[in-house]
């Protein structure tokens, strides 16, 4: 047997340095599955190569052989809910062009779950219990150390409306008067850096113009029943009380397609099958959670690359 005298290639020692974080990742995935199975959710798989995706102004899908790589499993999960399931979850990969940074990778791991519900509250409770379950399963502790601070995960977490958060940190109310660019810039530069440092925060009641696929509040149509979870300034999950009106959904998709055209891109075709399922979908709520970011939190990592075996540049 010949002895190895050469130095190991740098990419192998780089991979070795991720060993601990990848072990935590494996445990987090196991605990997420255990949580949802215990709660009576059914795990499903939906295709990654699709004939169309939800038209969204700021999400650019990849195309392969005339098909689209899934940017999220949302439409197929909701079609399953329309077929009579009451609790579903899935852990899969999603793909979004151009999203590359310390908190983004064009291919990432997403957890989505849907449940029958009358409002958003149940979904927020799912998030509280999921994080607590994973944290306790990892080291028996309800607190995490992240970015030099301590976050207490024990429920209930703080609930803050977009109106309250923006009035406090940015000095204006985007729900009363919406301005997309000002909203996005103030959200990332003034609001998010203040959210979830002692306890996680649910940011809810988004401006109707940023509703995406969420239903509007029945008593306050200028706001949408949409929630985002923040822990230590990190956006972890997005939840909707789902829009079930096929007419309104079609209208929103058409507006998004028009905006995509204006920006010089070709919009994906309308997801007709999905739209036609909506009238059969029972009242339900669903959430999408960035698994890589969740692992970052439990590894006290400062970038997604530290918790992924191979990121965009490494494969």
């Amino acid at each position, binding site marked *: 047997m010949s002895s190895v005298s050469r130095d190991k290639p740098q990419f192998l020692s780089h991979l070795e340095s991720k060993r601990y974080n990848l072990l935590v990742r494996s445990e987090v995935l196991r605990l997420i599955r255990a949580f949802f199975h215990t709660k009576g959710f059914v795990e499903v798989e939906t295709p990654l190569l699709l004939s169309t995706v939800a038209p969204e102004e*700021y999400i650019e899908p990849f195309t392969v052989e005339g098909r689209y790589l899934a940017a999220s499993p949302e439409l197929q999960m909701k079609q399953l809910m329309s077929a009579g399931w009451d609790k579903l979850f899935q852990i899969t990969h999603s793909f979004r062009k*151009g999203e590359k940074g310390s908190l983004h990778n064009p291919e990432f791991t997403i957890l989505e779950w849907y449940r029958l519900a009358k409002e958003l509250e149940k979904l927020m409770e799912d998030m509280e219990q999921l994080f607590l379950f994973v944290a306790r399963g990892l080291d028996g502790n309800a607190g995490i150390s992240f970015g030099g601070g301590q976050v207490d995960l024990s429920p209930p977490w703080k609930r803050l409306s977009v109106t309250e958060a923006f009035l406090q940190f940015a000095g204006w109310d985007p729900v009363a008067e919406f301005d997309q*660019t000002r909203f*996005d*810039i103030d959200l990332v*530069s003034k609001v998010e850096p203040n959210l979830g440092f002692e306890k996680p925060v649910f940011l809810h009641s988004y401006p109707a113009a940023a509703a*995406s696929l969420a239903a509007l509040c029945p008593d306050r149509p200028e706001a949408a029943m949409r929630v985002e979870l923040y822990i230590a300034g990190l956006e972890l999950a997005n939840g909707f009380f789902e829009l079930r009106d096929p007419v309104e959904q079609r209208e929103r998709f058409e507006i998004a397609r028009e905006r995509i055209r204006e920006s010089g891109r070709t919009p994906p075709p309308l997801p007709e099958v999905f739209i036609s399922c909506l009238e059969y979908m029972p009242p339900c709520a669903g959430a999408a959670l960035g698994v890589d970011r969740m692992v970052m939190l439990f590894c006290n990592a400062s970038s997604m690359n530290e918790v992924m075996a191979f990121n965009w540049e490494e494969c």
Partner: protein
Amino acid sequence: MATVSAGDLRKGLAIEMEGAPHLIVALEFVKPGKGQALYRCKLKNLITGQLSDRTYRSGDTFQTAEVRDTEMQYLYHHADSYYFMHPETYDQIEMSAEDVGEASNFLKEGMLVTLLLYEGRAIGFNLPNFVELEITETDKWVKGDTASSDTKTAVVETGYALQVPPFVEVGDIIKIDTRTGKYVERVKR
């Protein structure tokens, strides 16, 4: 000068902003849920040194700033002006005493420094981390005087005064760290 969009911005690139070259010292891709792609930048004004935070949209465009490092030789100073020369083209560049600032403490004729050039003028320069200068003034060391303090004041050929060990004498060459302004060691006596 070239036009670039926010997606092309990179750490280390200099862009024009409000009539001054700004160096991108930190850059982060951010994207709020369902929102647009944004680029959060930390910029350094290369003329004033001031740092600022800016957030750009992916459609925003910029002009790159022509800023380059050029190694030049320090010639001499006269009144409030410092003169440098390119060692190959012999082009001369003048900098004001104000722009040279405290670095004048370590400038010795003939020394090579790196000038930052922008639109034909120098907006800054990097000294070598260490310079060797000759002592022109200091008190004599009395051997055996153990009661005196550990250091004494000395003046080097540029007129800069600093603390040195007692054994350093007039005519010695000492090494100074330009980042701290402190004595490092005696090079030659």
